[in-house]
């Protein structure tokens, strides 16, 4: 049996029926990592010892006849901007290269309560800033489907780990597409939950009005299981919200899906357009009603996003000062030198670019022209979606306008890298849940369909994802 190819449900049932042990599951993943990760570089840290010890613990619980939670003994990979107590958490930055997390993120506490087996920490664009995982201070991750190409970003390590069966599922974070884009590029399911649905306590803050933690998994069903395990209000995250509705059965027949006309214009790869339209056609055959909708501010959403995101980032990253923790250059003559040199040498090029951009758009004289205007455009984008959701239940779009690009192709052109996020950023500006579902391939490169839902209606978009898979 190919253990690493199993879904979470299959692995859980196998454990309960004693078809294999948690130790065997863990060992199978560790073997895959040894076999494949030298070429892919999905992991920054592998905790072989603690993973094996946890797997043995699950086996002894099983032997004792205990009924175990769904995620018990299932190996998981964690994006390296989510804190796991006692384990290094680098955010793929030199400035946190030796930082050991002093506490667990809430999502980690929840996984540990379920007796999950944490394999290690996955690569990302430094501080999650990027769309290709090339901005890591520790070297890029490569796409398992074509090693000359990027896995997408910023949760590229998490997506590549799941796609190459080095982990059963992974956690990522999504600020403007960082779960959905790599899910699309690597051919796995990636869910960006509703803003506030999952606690962000212990997630290294990037752009706080946009950030959200979510799962990357082999299937929509697995993504749902993980989402349900990590969701919920948390006293330690004041923006977290208790779910307003419980999952319920939905009727696919008669469900209305909107296709935004602004998403199928110039700039989209013809082969992607074809694959997405075929996927939409399949839903139509299942009885889903396809309706054209309009999101007129689509073109402006990306500009607003690239003001709001760096502005918030520049404020959040002020904490890396070479004083409290992290990389510190203390050679200068005074405190100012410590700041300038620690930050100047500790941060990579893209992080500095965004801090500069954000500081500029927030600075006196430019605040009204940029930041304030972007916040108003955000209101318009929200109105667009509200209007569309009066006519439809979900919205279907491509996740990305382009196929996975070559490593190095866009690193020297930040603007063209930003344009990769054109279909994903609006979802974060509005706070909506969205799933990227693998629906086909162009050659050997996967294509993802983005299914966008209304706030706290994850169950609806996940149900659509699951039905496609059957």
């Amino acid at each position, binding site marked *: 049996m190919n253990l690493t190819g199993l879904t979470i449900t299959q692995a859980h049932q196998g454990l309960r029926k004693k078809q294999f042990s948690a130790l065997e599951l863990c060992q199978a993943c560790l073997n895959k990592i040894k076999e494949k990760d030298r070429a892919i570089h999905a992991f920054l840290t592998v905790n072989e010892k603690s993973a094996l010890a946890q797997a043995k613990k699950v086996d002894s619980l099983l032997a004792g006849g205990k009924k175990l939670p769904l995620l018990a003994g299932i190996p998981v990979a964690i994006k390296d901007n989510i804190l796991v107590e006692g384990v290094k958490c680098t955010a793929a930055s030199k400035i946190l290269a030796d930082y050991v997390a002093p506490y667990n993120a809430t999502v980690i506490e929840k996984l540990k309560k379920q007796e999950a087996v944490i394999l290690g920490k996955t690569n990302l664009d430094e501080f999650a800033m990027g769309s290709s995982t090339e901005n890591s201070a520790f070297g890029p991750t490569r796409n398992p489907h074509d090693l000359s190409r990027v896995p997408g970003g910023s949760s590229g390590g998490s997506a590549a780990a799941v796609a190459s069966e080095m982990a059963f599922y992974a956690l990522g974070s999504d600020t403007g597409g960082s779960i959905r884009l790599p899910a699309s590029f690597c051919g796995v399911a990636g869910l960006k939950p509703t803003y506030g649905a999952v606690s962000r306590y212990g997630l290294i803050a990037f752009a706080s009005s946009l950030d959200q933690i979510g799962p990357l998994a082999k299937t929509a069903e697995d993504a749902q299981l993980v989402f349900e395990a990590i969701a919920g209000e948390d006293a330690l995250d004041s923006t977290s919200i208790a779910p307003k509705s419980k999952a319920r059965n939905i009727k696919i027949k008669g469900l209305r899906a909107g296709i935004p006309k602004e998403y199928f214009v110039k700039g989209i790869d013809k082969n992607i357009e074809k694959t997405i339209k075929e996927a939409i056609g399949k839903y139509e055959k299942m009885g889903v009603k396809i309706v054209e909708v309009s999101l007129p501010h689509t073109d402006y959403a990306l500009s607003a996003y690239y003001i709001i995101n760096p502005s918030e980032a520049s404020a959040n990253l002020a904490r890396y000062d070479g004083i409290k923790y992290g990389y510190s250059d203390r050679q200068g003559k*005074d*405190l100012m030198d410590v700041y300038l040199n620690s930050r100047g040498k500790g941060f990579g090029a893209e992080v500095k670019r965004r801090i500069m951009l954000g500081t500029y758009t927030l600075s006196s004289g430019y605040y009204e022209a940029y930041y304030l205007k972007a916040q108003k455009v955000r209101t318009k984008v929200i109105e667009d979606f509200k209007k569309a959701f009066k006519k439809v239940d979900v919205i279907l779009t491509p996740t990305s306008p382009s196929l996975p690009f070559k490593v190095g192709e866009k690193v020297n052109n*930040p603007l063209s890298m930003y344009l990769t996020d054109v279909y994903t950023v609006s979802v974060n500006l509005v706070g909506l849940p969205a799933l990227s579902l693998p629906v086909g391939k162009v050659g050997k490169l996967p294509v993802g369909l983005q299914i966008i839902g209304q706030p706290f209606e994850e169950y609806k978009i996940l149900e659509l994802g699951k039905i496609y898979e059957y």
Partner: protein
Amino acid sequence: MIKKEEVKHIAKLARLGLNEKETATYQKELSLILGYIEKLKKVKLTGVETTSHPFQVENVTRRDEGRPSKQKLLSLAPETKAGFVKVKSILK
């Protein structure tokens, strides 16, 4: 194109020590990105409210208790003295 002096001023506000080469690169790149963002000028926004947070949320509150121990956090600091984080002198 934004001025070089402006890039240096922003870098100082952001507490980023940049060398000459970086300053020149960011001057070029920031100008390009800001040029792209300019398209926002075309949107009619009179009377539109700002959004800083996607939803109306209520505060989540908790007891104000220290979580990780002070000792643990201090051990992460590059330099400490007598239970405090040490910095270089501020007053001249």
